């Protein structure tokens, strides 16, 4: 199907299937998708985080994204001992795919009212699902519910994990609007509960993106119903310190360059899309990103070193690139409209390159 705003094609949710029956024989209210790859220690913790929920009408789908099946099966088997009646199934993918493809595989059979993406290194406070479902049901038009987040910085070494620090992840209602999110990915997936009907309305996650697929999906989703913010910190977003074992790193801290590249790719994709109501999604994203960076400086203060993380040079280069890109597009468009202008332009270019 095509995104309503950009026209880009995304796979739609498959037709309703009965793969997600829980042990009572009825549909669970929430499908929790947990993608994992070679982190059995954290996977065991993440499964326990779901099992600890006071809201119990859920099914958990663990997607082993091409990793060794044995440790995953073992962690799941141990978890089942603690809650034999819980609905917990595993999908072993034959190869390692992108995170979004892994999510799509699990969601392909999702028939629940809601779904959530619970990464294998994150965790929920026990009231997360209960509160999020309560708010989602009270706001029937909302596409998603997002709760407050605690960022936990931890060290993982030699199979052991211990906390180093934790802080409040900055989030407010403004950052959950389209304009609030277009500049940057403003919340981690662990904080959100989505309405499953979104998958048929805006399509699935974009499998072509190795990272930031959640951001791209959120931007499509927020246009069809808006996100409701619950100002209670019920989700824990875990990141590892630099001295942790590399396998334990989360995708942002380990792959900062990749995130930057994918973000540029996405912005380029949006720049090429036609404007809607005179607004180009790519341009809006870039200018919103600059505003967010300024906001970041204002909140943290330059004196506190808050400005150090803002790459002013990068922003300037990027703006110049966009201007150049837009100029080229304009020339191409003009050449198509007036072929004579195009021929003259090509002649000028050849004279410049090869001399008179």
């Amino acid at each position: 199907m095509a995104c309503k705003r950009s026209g880009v094609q995304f796979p739609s949710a498959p037709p309703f299937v009965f793969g997600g029956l829980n042990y009572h024989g009825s549909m669970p209210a929430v499908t929790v998708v947990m993608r994992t790859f070679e982190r059995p220690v954290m996977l065991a913790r993440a499964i326990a985080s779901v099992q600890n929920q006071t809201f119990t009408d859920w099914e958990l789908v663990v997607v082993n994204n091409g990793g060794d099946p044995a440790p995953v099966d073992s962690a799941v088997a141990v978890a089942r001992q603690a809650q034999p009646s819980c609905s917990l199934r595993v999908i072993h993918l034959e190869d390692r795919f992108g995170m979004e493809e892994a999510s799509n595989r699990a969601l392909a059979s999702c028939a629940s009212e809601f779904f959530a993406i619970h990464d294998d290194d994150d965790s929920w406070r026990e009231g997360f699902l209960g509160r999020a479902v309560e708010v989602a049901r009270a706001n029937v038009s909302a596409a998603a519910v997002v709760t407050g987040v605690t960022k936990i910085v931890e060290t993982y070494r030699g199979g052991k994990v211990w906390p180093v620090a934790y802080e409040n992840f900055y989030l407010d209602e403004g950052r959950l609007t389209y304009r609030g999110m277009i500049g940057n990915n403003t919340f981690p997936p662990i904080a959100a509960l989505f309405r499953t009907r979104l998958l048929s309305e805006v399509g699935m996650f974009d499998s072509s993106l190795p990272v930031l697929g959640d951001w791209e999906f959120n931007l499509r989703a927020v246009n069809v119903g808006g996100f409701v913010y619950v100002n209670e910190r019920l989700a824990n977003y875990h990141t590892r310190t630099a001295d942790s074992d590399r396998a334990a790193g989360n995708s942002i801290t380990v792959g900062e360059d990749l995130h930057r590249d994918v973000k540029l790719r996405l912005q380029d994709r949006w720049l090429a899309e036609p404007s809607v109501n005179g607004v180009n999604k790519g341009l809006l994203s870039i200018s919103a990103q600059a505003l967010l960076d300024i906001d970041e400086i204002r909140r943290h203060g330059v004196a506190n070193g808050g400005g150090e993380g803002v790459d002013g040079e990068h922003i300037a280069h990027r703006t110049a690139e966009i201007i150049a890109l837009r100029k080229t597009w304009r020339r191409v468009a003009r050449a198509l409209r007036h072929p004579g202008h195009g021929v003259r332009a090509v002649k000028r270019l050849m004279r410049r390159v090869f001399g008179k």
Partner: protein
Amino acid sequence: MLLTAEQVLDGTPTATVLTVDFFDTLITRSVAQPTHVFAVMEQHLVAELGSAWSGFAVKRVRAEHDARVVAASDEPMRDVTIDEIYLAFAQAHGSSMAERRMLIEREKSTELALVKPVAFGVALVSAARARGMRVVIVSDNYMPASHIVNMAHAAGYSWVTPDDVMVSCEHGGMKHNGELWRAVIEEKSLDVAAVLHVGDDVLADGTMPASFGLATNVRDVMRRSHRVMANTSPAVLPLSRIEALYRDRSANGIWPSAEVLGGGAIALLVASQIVDVMNALKSRGVRSVQFIARDGYLAHQVWEKLRASGADLPPASYTALSRSVIWRSRIENVSEEVAHRLVGDDEVLTVERLGRRVGCELQSAKSGPLTADEARALLMANGSHIVAASRELRSRFVSYLRSVGLLDEGHHLLVDLGWTGSTMADVAEVVCEETAGAATVEGRLLGMYWDAVPHRQRVPLHGYAMNEFCGADDNVRLLGCQSLFESLITAPHGSVVGYSPSTVPEFAHTACEQRAYREVGEAIAAAALESAFRILAGTHESGVTASDISGDVAWATMMQLGHTPRRDEVELVSSVSHVTSVDHEGDGEPLIAPMPSQFVVHSELPEVYDSLMHANWVQGTLARWESDATTRWIPDEIRKLSPMFQPQWVQIP
């Protein structure tokens, strides 16, 4: 024994006027401290209006502080009003005018619902009125006199009229700073020589009125249940209600510290262990429930008593396991790592004691004390003997597990206090190995650390009061007070150190533990057993029942006692030592570390902190050091070093 009301009045025979404090002298509440009234409000707000009101109680405390700061900047002597407090609340949290009014009305109605007369206060004003004395209520409070009158009526003081009440928020000054006393004397035209004042605060009701020439009597017994005021949430209420009951019962006598500690916090924690098991039983088929020695001793006793009284509970075992036995039964070679686990860095051991520790005779050329390195070298030199002893121990251990049914096919719940799950994981592996997976084990712990994460791959674990998803601060707080809980939630016998050939558990006889149990533990355990049973049977006089217990309540109880102990609790356990050595021999470490040398300097504080964390009850020790003017600076500095040891543990959500 405290003076009776008549004796207090007889002490000042010339007095014709009795001025009397109101809160904690004439009336009290059915909770342990004033800020717990806000916790009751929060409970009702959340139940009626939703979880957005979570955290109300602590926000209300903060709002009062903010209002006082604002008021003091203009007029330092005056008290704030309830309206100013809720104005500060509204400014901080964006409440509407309607919400402010609603909250003020709710606070007043909650106070009226919880108010109770103090028996001494009733006797005092009755005797004074019988003697023809005029009685004036003088109170430092933010509520208007009209509300004080309503509360007095609700408590049975039906004679009180607004003319009989002088309250600080209406007279531009407080008892604490003397201004209210000036107003009382002027407005009521009192002859100070003919006035007796009775209250509960040394400064406001003693020093200040005495400076105006009034005779005074300070009686602070109703404050004995108070802890840090800033810690208030609905989760504190079960312990608060039980401690309020003890406060009222002992209002005319000595505070029974051991009984309060046992019947209050320890009983609630023991009851929590059982409630957790009951919850688990509802959702899965279980072959057996095993309370693990020694942390599960009290819970097992209560379980059996409940069964004897007709409760519908399955049989449960009291199972003698210990970390050291399981370690020793799994030694397959004596590597350097194993030697390090068996001998601590700071230990000095004899060859004989080291032999007892590993369960075999050791061949050594040296007699006399061994340093840690020498001891480890000796262990490695005797590796084959130790491995043989380990195999024998494993064989007996497995036989013991079979005898208690832990190797029977099915799922078994193991109940323990905490903390990392490593012992549970080791047991789970032994059970799995011996039964080829036919028997499985699940750990039900009261508290769990971050360290538990890797063990989750080997055994399902559940932390009732706390698990590894809680914040780092709470982990550190729990680490600071775990030795207290291990010392108080325990059995009359020592830790299991082995099994006889007929698989009977052999317990250590550690002198310091036996003495501590006789002096302190026994009384605490007796009160805990009785109180926990009553809570779970639904017959506790406080009204607290099993349905009031949750993980949050268990955590709050742990923090109320472990993180913000009262002085009497610290004194009570000051003679208790905590033994952690592998063989359970030696003198252990005192829960309350001795006062540091007067020569401690600031740069040594990190070392002091590490030592406390390693060996003692940190929060109890800090409270003890704080009570002495010469060492007070040390807790202050340590709390700067580790802010999680600041007294407030209930945070605004």
